């Protein structure tokens, strides 16, 4: 287990360094120069020179990388060209709100997805299973911006149940809950895609579990089917969900970009989209770094948790 942990942590560090190199390279991938794309084509050479020296863009590449890495470790992710605020404080403002949005939607997805997955496995290849599988598949395949728009068209425009977007004044985490009706639709849209993933995954693991000998034994003992499913199948099918949780993190974050821009949710996704429209690279790359790090750590945590919870993995990895 220790060796497995060390190896896994080493891989994560390598990937984290890779993400830093990636974001640094992306900044310099910009055709022409950063200054030109931010200041516009009509900027005078003097303004371009001032911009370059202000952001250290006139130094050799290796020095810039050195500075970049040192700044990252000091928690300095640069300054937004557009908002003239430190990127780290912009992200720090928004990250807690995203934690709430993503946390709530993942929780909702699990609460819906796991029981339906087990139910589908119990009704394997019957009408209920086929219907549910078809529904999840269509919802999963349909673009999430479309789901968002249809919900808005139906629940906001037609029936006025929920507000279509967050009021621009929401600035605090408490404000999110004060405006909870505005939270309902983004959470729903984000969870729809995850439900499909979770339920289909739980369904296939539950099918494998159902074929195990110990299930046959408890059935032969005369345990009611309901208890077979809740006590034995559910527990054993729940473990792999941890891995899926870690792996689906990038998808959830990507979905958040669309959901947040549709619903004007003041999170990382909206910040990201607005900076993409304004060519605000420090914000985009700082955000990418934070998201990348979160993904790597999330995967690591999922792997470790899985190893701790399932002894078979632990011994196989040792």
């Amino acid at each position, binding site marked *: 287990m220790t060796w497995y942990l060390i190896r896994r942590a080493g891989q994560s560090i390598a990937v984290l360094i890779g*993400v830093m190199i990636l974001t640094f390279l992306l900044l310099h991938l910009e055709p022409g120069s950063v200054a030109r794309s931010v200041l516009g084509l009509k900027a005078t050479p003097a303004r371009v020179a001032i911009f370059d020296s202000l952001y250290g863009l006139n130094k050799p590449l290796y020095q810039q990388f050195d500075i970049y890495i040192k700044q990252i470790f000091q928690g300095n992710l640069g300054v937004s060209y557009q908002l003239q605020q430190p990127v780290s404080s912009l992200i720090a403002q928004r990250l807690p709100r995203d934690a709430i949005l993503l946390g709530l939607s993942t929780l909702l997805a699990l609460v819906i997805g796991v029981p339906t997955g087990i139910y589908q496995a119990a009704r394997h290849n019957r009408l209920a299973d086929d219907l549910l599988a078809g529904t999840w598949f269509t919802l999963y395949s349909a673009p999430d911006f479309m789901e968002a728009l249809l919900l808005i068209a139906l629940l906001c425009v037609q029936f006025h149940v929920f507000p279509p977007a967050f009021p621009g004044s929401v600035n605090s985490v408490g404000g999110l809950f004060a405006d909870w009706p505005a939270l309902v639709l983004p959470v729903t849209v984000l969870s729809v895609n995850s439900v499909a993933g979770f339920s289909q995954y739980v369904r296939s693991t539950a099918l494998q579990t159902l074929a195990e000998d110990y299930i*046959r034994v408890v059935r032969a003992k005369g345990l009611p089917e309901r208890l077979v499913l809740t006590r034995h199948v559910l527990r054993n099918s729940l473990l792999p969900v941890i891995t899926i949780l870690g792996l689906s993190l990038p998808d959830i*974050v990507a979905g958040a970009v669309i959901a947040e821009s549709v619903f004007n949710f003041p999170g990382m996704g909206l910040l990201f989209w607005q900076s993409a429209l304004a060519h605000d690279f420090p914000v985009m790359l700082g955000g990418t770094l934070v998201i990348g790090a979160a993904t790597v750590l999330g995967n690591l945590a999922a792997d470790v948790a899985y190893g701790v919870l399932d002894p078979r993995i632990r011994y196989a990895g040792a």
Partner: protein
Amino acid sequence: MPAPETAPAHPSPAGSPLAPEGGEVTESGTGTQLSLRAFVQSKRAMTGTAIVVLLALFCFVGPLLYHTNQVAVNLGIENSPPGPGHPLGTDPYGIDVLGRLMTGGQSSLELGFAVGIATTVIGLLYGAVSGMVGGIVDAFLMRIIDTVLAVPTFILLIIVASMFSLSLSVIILILTALSWPYTARLIRGQVLALRSREFVQAARTMGATGRWVLARHMIPNTLGVSVVTATFAIADSIYALSALSFLGIGPPPPFTDWGTMLTGGVNNLFNGYWWQVYSPLVVLVLVVVAFRQVGDALNDIVSGQRTDAARRRRRFRLLPLSGPRPE
């Protein structure tokens, strides 16, 4: 243990004690023939393929039969509802929506197929080489993939898309650059599994070079998985382009695709011009669902789960079916 609900497709004396385990051998032929047959028999695969073919015909042959003006603005007929002359109405510039669907679909489908093929070729080579060579090279190549995969593809797509002036070919390049790592990692896993199989070791023992094993054993045996990932890559890239257009960072006009049409329509949805939203919506969902259906069905075939009947029969087999067959 649930009993099989329906009779197997090929009647066999399943109840008799003499019945072979796993049912009669009812299919014979090479692996490719069997897979093709399974593909044709799979309802999902065939429905998906039919939808894709019909949509391709609609987009590429349709404009030859249904002539519309897709260039000039005609404000005299702006936002007209579906009716004679314009079966799906017109958009805010007086352009026929049905004709627009065809033109927009061309770019969506071209993008999908180009990215699907390019992703598969690059991912196949990278993954196969990484898995074959192994050791430090493999570890290094895999960390590169982990790095790209650590950042959500859509986020990277937005960053890169906001840097370049986009055209269809640039988007194809970007999407390919971002999506091959998935294929590569999958193929590498397959190659690692294949490496320990007897027929590969036999070839090695007989003095086959690495390149020979790669070309004759590894790549043909991972083609099934590659086709599956290609299908998903097509669906994902069509979806990514539409999402990008929807966010307003897609290629600038006169470029058009279903996502662009959708965004334009959404701005008019609250005026009651529903035809501008629902027409691109339906085709977009249709094409993505169709490709994913095909991919899912192919996945079942490739992973050895043939038709439903075979799957039901297999449940009663005791011997593992995967792995090398005893000759």
